[in-house]
Every structure is written in C-alpha cells, then in structure tokens.
C-alpha cells in the first residue's frame, strides 16, 4: 500500500507564468486528485461597470487579459453594439477581424514557446518568441501598442489601415509564415517533443463535450466547435473550417494550435482581399438598454460576455466567462492519473490564462 501525499503546486512555480495553486494528491508518482484554488489574480473588475461610463469601460475590458486584449475589447463592443442596434461599418468589421487574427497568431506563438519551456526545450522557446516579435511589429505599426491595442471602440475602430500597408502586412506574414513553418516543424515532427506530449493527458471527445471545454482543447478531441462560425465581425464572408484533431492528447492540442496559426495567416489574406472601403466608425449616442450574450472565439476558446443595461450610462451587470474558466474542469480531469513529471505539460496545454479566469 503506497502512501498518499499532498504536493502543493504554485502559486509561484518556475514553469507557471501565472499564479494558480493546485493541491496534488499523489500516490507514488501518480496524481490521484488535483484540487485547484485560484484567487491570486482576482481583481473584481466586473463590478467596475457600476462606476465607469459604458463607453470608457472598453479600456477596462481590454485589460482583462493582456494576451487577447483586443478580442476582449471587441467582444465588449459587440455586446453593447448588439444591444443598441448599431450598424457597424463593414470596413471596421474587417479591420477587427484582421487584428483579432493577428492576436491569435501572437498568442499561439507565445503558447508554443511556453510549452517548449515547460518541457525543457529552451532554444525552441526563444525561437518562438523571436518570431512572435515580427507579429508584434505589425501590431505596433498599425495600432501603436504592443499588447494593449486600444483600437476598438463602440461603433467601430479608432484607426484605419490603408491598402498599401495592408498589402505589406500580407507580404510580411508570408515571409514570417515560412519561418514559423520551420519552427513549428519541430513541434510536429521532433522525436523529443513527441516523447513528452504524445499520449499524455488524453481527453476523449465525449468527455470534453460533457465538461464544457472550449477552444483548442475541445477541437483537439475531435469536436468541431469554433465560435467564429457564429458569424460575428467579418467571419461570415471568409472561408474557413474549424481545425480538428482526433487524438485528444497534449500533442493534438499542440497540432491544433500550430495549424490555427496558418489558418489565421490565410484569414488575414482573405480579409485583405475582400476589405471594402468606407467609414471606420459610427458615432454613438445615448445609452444601452437591454441584455446580450456576446460570444467570440479567442485563442483559448469561446469567451462569453454578458452585458445587462438599463438605459443609464453605467451598465447594470457585466460578466465575463473566459475560455480558461471553462477549461479548468477538464484540466482537473486530465491531471487525474497523470504522473508528476507530466503535470506542467498538462496544465500548459489548456493554455491557462489565469488573469482571464479570475478577472
């Protein structure tokens, strides 16, 4: 009869970029149970809506998470626009799509780097982050910010990208894409990477669905669910299919993200070709009255914003259900039965964004 131990993991841990705490109940080297406890990043910003004007709140929404900051701002704007029935100009929708896809590329590259760091492939980590800087350069050139863009506002966007620049971006993405391809080849084919990721943390399709997981975690288990298919922004005019993998293990999740990078490059190309001219925003007056659940596919999965307004400048309720929050139960389930050495990998493959989870 082996002995049961409880190993505390986090909140400050070398492989964790962010603070989450787990109590791992182990028997020898195997994890029997994992109990997450959060709250190290909880700020309580949902309650800030009661103090801030609904138009200014975009700034706070962007700062829910610094990785998909643009998409947070965009989801919030969509929710309010939907309630107020604002017809956002087509061009603004396309611009949003471009920025959202750029965010996805940089987020996935960042994740690939962190994952490489978690399984001890230092040079791969550095390489991914080097490539990511190329994407950030594009973002900086078009919005002025590197992580917080501040370019989305209710009724449209703040900045335009002229056609010349847009062409340049597509070209640059082509060259960066080739380089990314060389690096991601390592993830797909390298023996040591496969050794660390294949067959680890398997989640079957039914389980993933029952646990309410979203995003790449769900798609890696063979369920084709991508919130971009809801047709927000300009996605209704773009052609794409959700990236799906069957295996459901850590390597499948890695493959999904790798393929999504190239899908995003392609989507930006399509958007650049189809982008119409015209205004980039409409003036918004008045105050929202009503409620809406706005859903957007972030790099980590579907995010749900609930906005309830009562016709005043301050919203009544603002609630964010972030993808990582929905993926936490799956992480707990995957950790059960895993060996201690694989714990960091499994935690990282759900791409945890703790500041999203706790807001």
């Amino acid at each position: 009869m082996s002995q049961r131990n409880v190993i505390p993991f986090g909140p400050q841990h070398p492989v964790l970029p962010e603070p989450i705490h787990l109590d791992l109940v182990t028997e020898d080297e195997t994890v029997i149970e994992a109990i997450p406890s959060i709250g190290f990043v909880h700020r309580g910003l949902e309650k800030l809506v009661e103090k801030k004007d609904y138009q200014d709140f975009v700034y706070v929404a962007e700062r829910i998470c610094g990785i998909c900051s643009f998409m947070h701002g965009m989801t919030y704007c969509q929710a309010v626009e939907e309630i107020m029935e604002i017809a956002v100009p087509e061009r603004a929708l396309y611009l949003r799509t471009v920025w959202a896809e750029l965010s996805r590329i940089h987020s996935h590259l960042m994740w690939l780097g962190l994952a490489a760091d978690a399984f001890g492939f230092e040079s791969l980590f550095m390489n991914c982050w080097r490539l990511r800087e190329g994407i950030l350069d594009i973002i900086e050139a078009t919005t002025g910010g590197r992580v917080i863009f501040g370019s989305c506002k209710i009724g449209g966007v703040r900045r335009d990208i002229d056609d010349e620049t847009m062409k340049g971006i597509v070209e640059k993405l082509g060259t960066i894409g080739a380089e990314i391809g060389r690096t991601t080849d390592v993830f797909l084919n390298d023996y040591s990477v496969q050794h660390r990721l294949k067959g680890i943390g398997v989640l079957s399709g039914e389980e993933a669905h029952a646990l309410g997981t979203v995003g790449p975690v769900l798609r890696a288990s063979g369920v084709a669910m991508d919130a971009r298919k809801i047709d927000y922004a300009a996605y209704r005019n773009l052609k794409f299919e959700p990236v799906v993998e069957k295996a459901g293990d850590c390597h499948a999740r890695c493959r999904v993200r790798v393929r999504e990078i190239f899908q995003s490059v392609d989507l930006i190309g399509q958007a650049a070709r189809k982008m119409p001219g015209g205004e980039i925003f409409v003036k918004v007056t008045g105050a929202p009255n009503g409620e809406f659940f706005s859903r957007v596919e972030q790099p980590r999965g579907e995010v749900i914003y609930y906005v309830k307004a009562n016709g005043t400048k301050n919203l009544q309720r603002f609630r964010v259900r972030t993808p990582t929050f929905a993926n936490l139960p799956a992480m707990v389930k995957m950790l059960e039965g895993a060996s201690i050495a694989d714990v960091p990998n499994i935690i990282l493959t759900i791409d945890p964004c703790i500041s999203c989870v706790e807001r």
Partner: protein
Amino acid sequence: MFFKKSPWIIHYDATSCNGCDIEVVASLTPMYDLERFGIVNTGNPKHADIFVVTGAVNESSRMVVKNIYDQMPNPKVVVAVGICATSGGVFRECYNVLGGVDKVIPVDVYVPGCAARPESIIDGIITALDILERRLVEFRKAKSEARRQEKKLRRYHLND
C-alpha cells in the same frame, strides 16, 4: 564589486492582466535580450537578487509577494513593472485590489506604462542594478561593522 554583472531576477504576477508579464518575458527573449547583461530569470526566490513584480496586489497575492520578498537573500531590489504595480492603475477602484506593490513591500524602481514597453523594463532593471551595487557596499559595510563591534565586545568580556 562585480555583483551587478550577473544578477538573477525572479518574476511574480500579483494580479496583473498579463500584459506586463509577457512584456517582462519578452524582454528576456532574443529580440530585447536582457540576458546580455548577465541576467538570468530564476524560479527560486532564494537564488534571486532582483524581484520584478507586475500588477496591483490583492488579498491573496499579498502574502505570496511578502513571502518571496522575505525569502530573497540580502541585498535585494524590487522593481514594480506597469502602472498597476505602481498605483493600481485602472483597477484602483476594484474591491479586491490593494493598489500598488509598495503597500506590501518597499519598491525601489517604478516602471511606468500600460503595458510597460520592453525598453522601459530593461531601463528599469538596469537602474535597479546600480541600486543593487550600492546596497551591496552598504551591506558589506554594515556586516564588517557588526563584526568589529562583536570583536570589541568579546575583548571587553575577556578583560572583565
């Protein structure tokens, strides 16, 4: 003397939005390459000389921040990165935010920006190096002074 040539840093996220965190990590990666200053990122507080904190502190992370700070060997410097870590920033009015790292531990360098740019983070850490060097001199002086006092005391006792 050459202490500032190889300081190790530890990074902790105390309720930041991640924006500043990734910029801290970005400044360590090839493009900005903080490692050219001999700086290594470590996960162990007992190895670290510079403590980089991002985000305004909240009720739960307050103890963690304090803990890490206490575990670090002397001399040590604290760099607060981002406007959140400086004053609370946009989150200042949130119910769960204390507002600024300096509410919990003494801060030496404040790096402004939301998110702080890698260049300014590097600048902040280089500033911290000088402070670290100064601290080291003071620390050595205090130690030798203490040793002297102790010797004196012992002599005194012997004469007694």
